[in-house]
């Protein structure tokens, strides 16, 4: 295998990851059941993610620096995933308060990072890392309550989210530094990131497939 073929294969993984969210999105859209906050949140997450990816690809094709999209995504990702966990923990007022507080703090931090610390034309390493750490905490909180719960709603999503954010923390921290490394290193790292993203979308699809027809409003607590 030549180096070019290998590069092309790695970038294909990135392309697949950009549109892999369409599968769970279409599945959830055409699923015949009543809408619930949980389902709506997942739909919004998928739509926002696909839109951001599509816009990033478009800007990249137009040879425009698209790194400001990472700032935008970091700012909207946290409230979206927080809504997902709030939908699962909607009966526990204390957990809801914790989730909202962490989300507001994280959002303020990413905003401060964009405005004061890191240029909008570079990766937002601080903000993105903070968001990843907060989401990891949400996942751990979910797993802390999960063994006592009566159902499996959100398990695959939380698991994939934990693996995605946990494994990518170093990538988020060093993303600006990695740009200075060899192209091969960058390709491999971002291909790994894309694979984990595909895994996350697959988990959303798997979670949707596991919903029981009668249960329209899943919850953990």
């Amino acid at each position, binding site marked *: 295998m030549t180096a070019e073929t290998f590069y092309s294969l790695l970038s294909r993984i990135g392309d697949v990851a950009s549109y892999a969210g369409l599968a769970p999105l279409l599945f959830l859209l055409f699923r015949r059941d009543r809408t619930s906050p949980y389902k709506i949140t997942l739909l919004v997450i998928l739509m926002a993610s696909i839109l951001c990816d599509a816009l990033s690809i478009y800007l990249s094709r137009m040879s425009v620096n698209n790194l400001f999209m990472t700032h935008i995504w970091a700012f909207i990702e946290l409230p979206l995933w927080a809504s997902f966990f709030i939908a699962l923990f909607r009966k526990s007022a204390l957990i809801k308060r914790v989730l909202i507080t962490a989300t507001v703090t994280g959002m303020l931090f990413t905003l401060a990072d964009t405005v004061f610390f890191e240029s909008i034309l570079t990766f937002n390493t601080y903000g993105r890392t903070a968001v990843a750490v907060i989401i990891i905490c949400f996942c*751990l909180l979910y*797993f802390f309550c999960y063994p006592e719960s009566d159902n499996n709603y959100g398990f695959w999503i939380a*698991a994939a989210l*934990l693996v995605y954010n946990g494994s*990518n923390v*170093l990538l988020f921290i060093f993303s600006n530094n*990695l740009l200075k490394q060899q192209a091969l290193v960058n390709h491999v*790292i971002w291909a790994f990131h894309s694979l984990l993203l595909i895994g996350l979308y697959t988990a959303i699809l798997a979670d949707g497939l596991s919903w029981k027809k009668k249960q329209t409003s899943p919850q953990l607590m």
Partner: protein
Amino acid sequence: MEQDISINLLFFSGTAILFLFTIFIILMVTKQKQRHLRIKMNAEQAEKQHRENLLYSVIQATETERERIARDLHDEMGSILSLTSLKLKSLHTTKDNSVEEVLHLLSEAQRNARELSNQTYPTPLHLFGLEHVLNIMIERAVAVGAPIHFSYETGTGKLSKELSLSVYRIVQELLSNSLKYARASSINILIKEQNGAIALDYTDNGVGTDLNFSTPGFGFNNIRSRMLFVHGTFEMASSAGKGFSFRASIPLNPEI
């Protein structure tokens, strides 16, 4: 260049460790969930066993008490009434209307005591078996005007006391419902031995009721308790104006 390689190595190994660590967390959580489910299942099983034991004791105690009352009614009260009747007959020489009336009342009391004794507990069950006591019950029902077709096709082996008594009580309950509330003009009862179980098939052509909208009463709960007691399964079907049917299967040798 060398520094780059070591940074890359550090980065890749750090990412790999984090990846494996997250997988480890998920595996641990899954294991914990399985453990929790196992504990919950065991607790539910123990709770179910406890409820069954409690039900068993209650039914056993009720039947023992009923048997005692029936025996007392039949033996004690019956013999006292018979003796009083005989004494009165030997005493009255003249044609005294009041003594005649007392004798009549006594004979009525004797009949009622016998009836009550039979209703409380089917004493002949131990001696003559389920078919015999069911026949007596059905004869009484037929006497009040309900045409009943009864078929009993079990093997020659004797049924256990618990099983016989439960089938008797269930049929008693169903029959009482059909006559009192359903105003049935035809009732079919079929009891047969099938694949190591007693199959009870009961149908009537009464007014019926929509089972989805009716609240289970004392009779239904009684049937359910009896079925639970003998580890049987049952299904009921009924709709307004279309009669009622009850099918049950009770294992002859339940594995408890």
